[in-house]
């Protein structure tokens, strides 16, 4: 009965070293008004200086989205007053943005879908305003940060599609290294436009929804809003073109109390910034920074490595995992084992130690050694888990851990290693040896416990006890 049309406006904060028009840094969370200068504060007489890293990042995203890239990019002034805007105009792009007419593919329940991209444009972020009871507080640290806005066509058809799109988009910008994609911190923001209409009647009246700070909320907000609009249409009530805010406490969208008139932004070309012409060298630098995009990489992992879809999905979830995996594969690690380990044990251990794959002391090389040890029968899979953990916590070589723990199940190696360990423990506990000589059986148990601890429970109890008694004898 109804068609649904969803479009997204995504803002990403680019991970540039400095702001888009001045040299201030961009760290998040510092004391208010400590990353500011006359330029981003909008003092009299200041002028914008274009950050070319921001432009390069923008062209990279444009490429990833298959946009037609501008060969003569322009900036425009978008004029409106708001306390968090230092100049009360935003330098943005309207006439000749970074890229237009692109597309982006994402997976929705096993099916690959594509949404068209209307345009992407580079602009500056505003500061932050917080209202307290008696005053309004302004922090301009964020003012002037590089912001890339991506506007899709209203091609998404369900709230779930919007969520999948957003998740895939986030993955893509993280792969490129241009953005953290952190919706809670605000480095990735999403507003949605949704309209509902009777089937076959084309687009309906568009409602904008703001204030959703996770992809899950985007889906929930859209679900609610679509229901609301359908109800209105069934009741033959008109849908007002407005901006509504997502209320995450009450799970509904709310119309804003103040009537917001449609802004006339009075766009005109930014006279302080000449047209940006990319040129050959610049485009080559863009190409040099591109990487294989996540969806493509996932499909390749499935076909090239024969990975199961869910494992491929997990491994390509973050670029560093995919890189780690391929490095391990290059070390001839067993593919399937590697994938399973990554999804299971390795992620668990790394998370417990607050580490990620890119800084894991268990490098792909060390990991492949570990897998080979399991293969050769030197250690059991269970023991390997312990070794992996130890490599990570101690940043040690797997071979060293295996030999010193006496894990090697080949008999003689075991014996030697065990004897060494018992000797060590005996040397460390001369008084306990004395006690055993004097007939204290509990003391034996104590030393046994030490041996088990040091061999992580792998020692042969009988052999260990014999060796301890040997030590007791030789002490004198």
């Amino acid at each position: 009965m109804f068609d649904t049309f969803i479009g997204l406006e995504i803002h990403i904060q680019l991970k540039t070293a400095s702001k888009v028009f001045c040299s201030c840094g961009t760290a998040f969370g510092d004391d208010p008004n400590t990353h500011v200068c006359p330029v981003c504060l909008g003092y009299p007489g200041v002028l914008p200086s274009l950050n070319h890293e921001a432009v390069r990042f923008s062209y990279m995203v444009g490429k990833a989205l298959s946009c037609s890239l501008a060969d003569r990019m322009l900036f425009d002034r978008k004029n409106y007053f708001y306390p968090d805007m230092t100049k009360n105009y935003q330098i943005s792009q309207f006439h000749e943005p970074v890229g237009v007419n692109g597309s982006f593919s994402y997976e929705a329940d096993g099916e690959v879908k594509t949404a068209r991209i209307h345009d992407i444009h580079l602009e500056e972020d505003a500061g932050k305003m917080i209202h307290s009871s008696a005053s309004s507080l302004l922090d301009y640290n964020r003012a002037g940060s590089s912001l890339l806005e991506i506007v899709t066509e209203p091609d998404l058809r369900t709230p779930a599609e919007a969520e999948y799109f957003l998740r895939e988009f986030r993955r893509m910008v993280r792969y490129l290294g241009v953005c953290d994609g952190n919706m809670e911190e605000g480095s990735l923001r999403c507003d949605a436009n949704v309209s509902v209409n009777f089937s076959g009647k084309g687009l309906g009246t568009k409602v904008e929804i703001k204030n959703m700070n996770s992809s899950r909320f985007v889906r929930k907000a859209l679900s609610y809003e679509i229901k609301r609009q359908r109800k209105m249409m069934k009741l033959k009530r008109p849908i007002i073109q407005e901006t509504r805010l997502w209320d995450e406490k009450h799970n509904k969208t709310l119309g804003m109390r103040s009537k917001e008139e449609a802004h006339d932004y009075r766009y005109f070309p930014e006279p302080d910034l000449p047209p940006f012409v990319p040129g050959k060298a610049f485009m080559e630098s863009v190409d040099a920074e591109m990487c294989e995009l996540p969806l493509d990489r996932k499909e390749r992992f499935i076909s090239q490595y024969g990975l199961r879809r869910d494992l491929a999905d997990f491994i390509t979830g973050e670029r560093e995992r995919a890189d780690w995996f391929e490095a391990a594969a290059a070390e001839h690690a067993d593919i399937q084992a590697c994938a399973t380990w990554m999804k299971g044990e390795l992620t668990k251990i790394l998370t417990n130690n607050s580490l990620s794959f890119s800084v894991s002391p268990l490098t792909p090389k060390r990991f492949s050694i570990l897998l080979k040890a399991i293969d050769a029968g030197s250690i059991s899979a269970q023991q390997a888990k312990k070794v992996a953990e130890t490599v990570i916590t101690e940043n040690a070589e797997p071979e060293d851990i295996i030999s010193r723990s006496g894990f090697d199940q080949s008999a003689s190696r075991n014996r030697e290693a065990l004897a060494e360990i018992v000797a060590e423990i005996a040397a460390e506990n001369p008084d306990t040896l004395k006690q055993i000589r004097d007939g204290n059986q509990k003391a034996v148990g104590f030393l046994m416990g030490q041996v088990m601890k040091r061999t992580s429970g792998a020692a042969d109890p009988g052999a260990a006890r014999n060796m301890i008694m040997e030590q007791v004898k030789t002490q004198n």
Partner: protein
Amino acid sequence: MKHWKRSTAAESVRKTYQQQLQKTDQDLAALLEIHVEQGYKLAHQADGELAGLPFAVKDNIAVEGFSYTCASKILEGLKSPYTATAVERLLQAGAVPVAKANLDEFGMGSSTENSAYRSTVNPWNRNRVPGGSSGGSAAAAAAGMVPFALGSDTGGSVRQPAAFCGIYGLKPTYGTVSRYGLAAYASSLETIGVLSPDLELTRKVYDCIRGGDFRDQTSMDIPEDPKKIPQSAEKTEGSYTLGVLKGELGLDPAVQQNYERTKAAVQSLGWQLKEIEIPMLEYAMPAYYTIAMAEASANLARYTGIRYGFRDTTAQDPEELVRMTRTKGFGPEVKLRILIGTYVLRSGFQDRYYIRAQKIRSLLQQELAEHFSRCDLIMMPVFPTQAFPLGDSGLIPIQQKVADRFTLTANLAAIPALSIPTGIDEGLPSAVQFMAPAFGEKRLFDAAARVAKVLPPPEIPRQFSLEQLIQEAADV
């Protein structure tokens, strides 16, 4: 120049100089802040020809630690946190900024009567205006208070006060002097300019301050390759072909008299006069003001009292604060221009006004380029009248704006122009204006030097003898 350098060299002399400036300024009201010692601290130790020379800076150009009011109440009390690039280059050359000069508020006006603080008088006649908007700079330089001053020229604001005060006033090619530090009024039209009774010094100051600056991305060096210069300014000496406007120009008798006299004088030098017509000139004034006011409406949006300057303390919320601050802080002429500028940028109106104005601008540039293919220079009057009386210009505001048509041509076309003092008529200074193709400053200086031989500039009305002053200080 020696006596000027000595004015700043010894602390005792600096003190005396400070006192003398203050005393003279009681009469002229040209300066908003005088602080010789502070300026001396900013200047670098240097050896060149500008080292030690004191100068005044129009109060819409930033000098760190000095006032930065733009002659407006809305910036009352503001001290600049940074220094404009043009001033910085003078500091590096060892020159000493000693005062901030009065102006029409934000550069909007032709008499300096629009200053929110005081009206400056013309050193030649206390009942007359010094011109505007760089009236303070012109009066100070003409009165011998400083050897040169910096001003800004958006539609004639350096040339017209220079003409009214009998000194040289250079408006450089757009982009050859960095605008970083010039409080923006009309970004695509304005430049920082130089005022001085000494032509050679004007040239030296220009050479010092010009050149590309990464902080102003519309700035550039003069191209090395003459082929890159339109209408190659190769010819920089000798006999020039001078284009002069055909027909009745609507000039006051004294101005007409001077104009005819100058035509005869240059012919006596062997120059050729060529009558030209510039049909687009009729539309220059409305096109200029459309563009200027549109840009001004955006450029002045940053003045809200939130981050610096005057702040209304009665407001109950941020929106009211902005509204009240701007209502109380801006003068009527400024408000008028902001309102008109906002109007012409309105959606639906841009085609009719702003875009049309830009088209007229292009056509005017084409017409001038045509003429420069046959003329080396174009001569025009500076203003239809000489310095008019204070308080009653005999021209209502709209007439004053029409009177700008001779000077605003060069701003619309982005070409250099020099106001040349050519004598005294009816007790007041007279002048003419030479315009050259882009980057043709060298030709302007050469031509002016030749004219000075047959039409010597008037002796400036010294307010005090600095030589005597220094001598007296030395004797102490």
